[in-house]
């Protein structure tokens, strides 16, 4: 079993007629994702890639029946609005790919979703993939393979890097989730690890963090208290200078908080196996699996 999405997930794409949204929708459909509706205000009644397009999310739900997941490509100034529109229709899993959303817009979204029971993944993320079943995002599908590793990462390209290493070693993945590189995100690494911990298919967890904030330390607290599955962790940005934003809005060392060293220390203390080199995430995972009799 995967987490968040699977072969039956009925997906809506918000921003389906945009360049990015259109290109990625096609890749999702090729992968086998059940894209059943699209939304672009003012383009209702058209079809895109064989998928009916609606003016509003409410229209899409009314016409197409239950929708389990919305994938959002709406440009940054309107992206928070798009998330709240999906939430208003009670779409259970909302995946927002958009990069560059103002932080205070996300503060509003996060507050509005509190207690709603809905799950937002992202923004500024590569999405979610259940290998072989469902791709809700922008990742290159060919590098993924099905198996027992749950992968959670703030970065998109580091998911591809880590998964490529795993797949080459014959180690498949249950689900891979990019939680996003912004300071305020819908679902944290800790929350995804909770889902992996409860998922019987997931035998081990690869956590890919980076500098900035304390999300990895919060994940470490949970791992120490509740996770008995092996956790392999890499933290990007050991060489990043303090006070500089490294691409992701959330990837900045402020004062002496948010350093890679502090995150590695917390995760190691929680029982995770720390991988210092980004080139050895796959090899380290293979070694840990063998040691625990899982490979």
């Amino acid at each position, binding site marked *: 079993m995967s987490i968040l999405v699977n072969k039956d997930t009925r997906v809506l794409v918000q921003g389906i007629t945009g360049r990015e949204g259109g290109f990625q929708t096609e890749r999702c459909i090729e992968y086998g994702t059940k894209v059943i509706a699209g939304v672009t205000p003012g383009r209702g009644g058209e079809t895109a890639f064989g998928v009916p397009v609606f003016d509003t999310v409410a229209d899409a739900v009314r016409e197409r029946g239950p929708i389990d997941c919305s994938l959002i490509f709406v440009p940054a100034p309107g992206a928070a609005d798009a998330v709240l529109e999906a939430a208003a229709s009670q779409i259970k899993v909302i995946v927002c790919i958009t990069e*560059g959303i103002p*932080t205070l817009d996300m*503060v509003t979204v996060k507050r509005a979703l509190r207690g709603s029971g809905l799950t937002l993944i992202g923004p500024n993320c590569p999405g979610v993939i259940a290998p072989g079943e469902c791709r809700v995002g922008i990742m290159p599908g060919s590098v993924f393979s099905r198996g027992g590793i749950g992968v959670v990462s703030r970065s998109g390209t*580091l998911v591809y890097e880590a998964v490529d290493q795993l797949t080459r070693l014959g180690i498949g993945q249950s689900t891979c989730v990019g939680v996003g590189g912004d300071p305020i995100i819908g679902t944290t690494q800790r929350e995804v690890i909770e889902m992996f911990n409860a998922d019987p298919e997931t035998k081990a967890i690869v956590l890919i963090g*980076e*500098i900035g904030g304390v999300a990895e330390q919060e994940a470490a607290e949970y791992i120490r208290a509740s996770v008995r599955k092996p956790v392999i962790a*890499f933290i990007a940005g050991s*060489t990043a200078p303090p006070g500089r934003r490294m691409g992701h809005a959330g*990837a900045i060392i402020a004062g002496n908080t948010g350093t890679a060293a502090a995150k590695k220390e917390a995760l190691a203390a929680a029982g995770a196996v720390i991988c210092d080199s980004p080139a050895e995430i796959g090899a380290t995972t293979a070694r840990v699996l063998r040691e625990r009799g899982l490979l």
Partner: protein
Amino acid sequence: MKVHEFQAKELLARYGVPVPHGRVATSASEARQVAAELGVPTVVKAQIHAGGRGKGGGIKLASTPDAAEAAARQVIGMTLVTPQTGPEGRLVRRVLLEEQTAIARELYLAVLIDSSGGGPVIMGSAAGGMEIEEVAAAHPEAIHRVAVDPAAGFQPFEGRELAFALGLGGELLRPAVALIAGLYRLFVEKDCSLAEVNPLVVTQDGRLVALDAKLNFDDNAAFRHADIVALRDVEEEDALEVRAQSEGINNYVKLDGDIGCIVNGAGLAMATMDAIKLAGGEPANFLDIGTVNDPARVVNALGIITADANVKAILVNIFGGMARVDVIAQGVVDAQKQLRADVPIVARLAGTNLEEGLKLLSDAGVRVEMAADLGEAARKAVAAVKA
């Protein structure tokens, strides 16, 4: 985005936060004029986008307009080195002249985003003037935090709680709550990422004054704040970083090493720097080239990297998902024609349209050392620098 202290104080004043009387000057003679107009002893403060200015000799006291002119003459044009500027320092182009303030107490006040809490927090400490990280490390109990509910917005009781915790009761209570409310409103209305008053002082005659201030703004919200964007001072930024931005490469950060990096994705770009370091080398930059659908972007990126005189080798690490390898390869081919880049290039290419990309490189006879994976790429780049 950062702004100067004098710009931050102008904004604070507009939001009802009291600041010392003062004005900025760009020459010694203008400084004299400002000091004469103020008619009181002044403090002359270098305006650069870095803290710790006092330690580097960038803040001077002047009791007369003559002394203010002399101080400004010393400070304007100096290369100010502070713990935050790095050893190369920063050229001072202007000074802020302000009335001197008789200080009774120094406090710390800031509004910032708490990622874990999911919203803004107001932080206050009775230990002003110190870096807040030092206070947090030494006396965490001395920091008072108020998490504002973004749905309700700032409430006066939150200001009162903080004011009492900071010892700002009695006559100071009402002005303290108004000041905190103003700082919070500024933070929200202008999309700040940090609004910091350090120190916030109680004067000997019982007033609250923001003696120093730092405002940082959310770059993602720049599209709705033309007034803030107009405050940008590109002379305070690294010249290569400014050039990169003007050429559409928003995620370039110059570092001190000698291996230039071009990578797609922020996480992979950081990881590539880490791999170089683990292999015994030093990265010259962080560069996330993003989703490339135009070879010119690669040419621009290579141009910026080779404009850094320290760069002795280049590592191109592309994991093509959204980015296509053939587009990257075409960019490398074009760059070698146009830029005569004579530094060796090591490339690790994977993902979408890999075969087409490799063919483009070999057809053009471009000398690129290929690497099979990230670890090998880092080792080869380090070897190329040491050769």
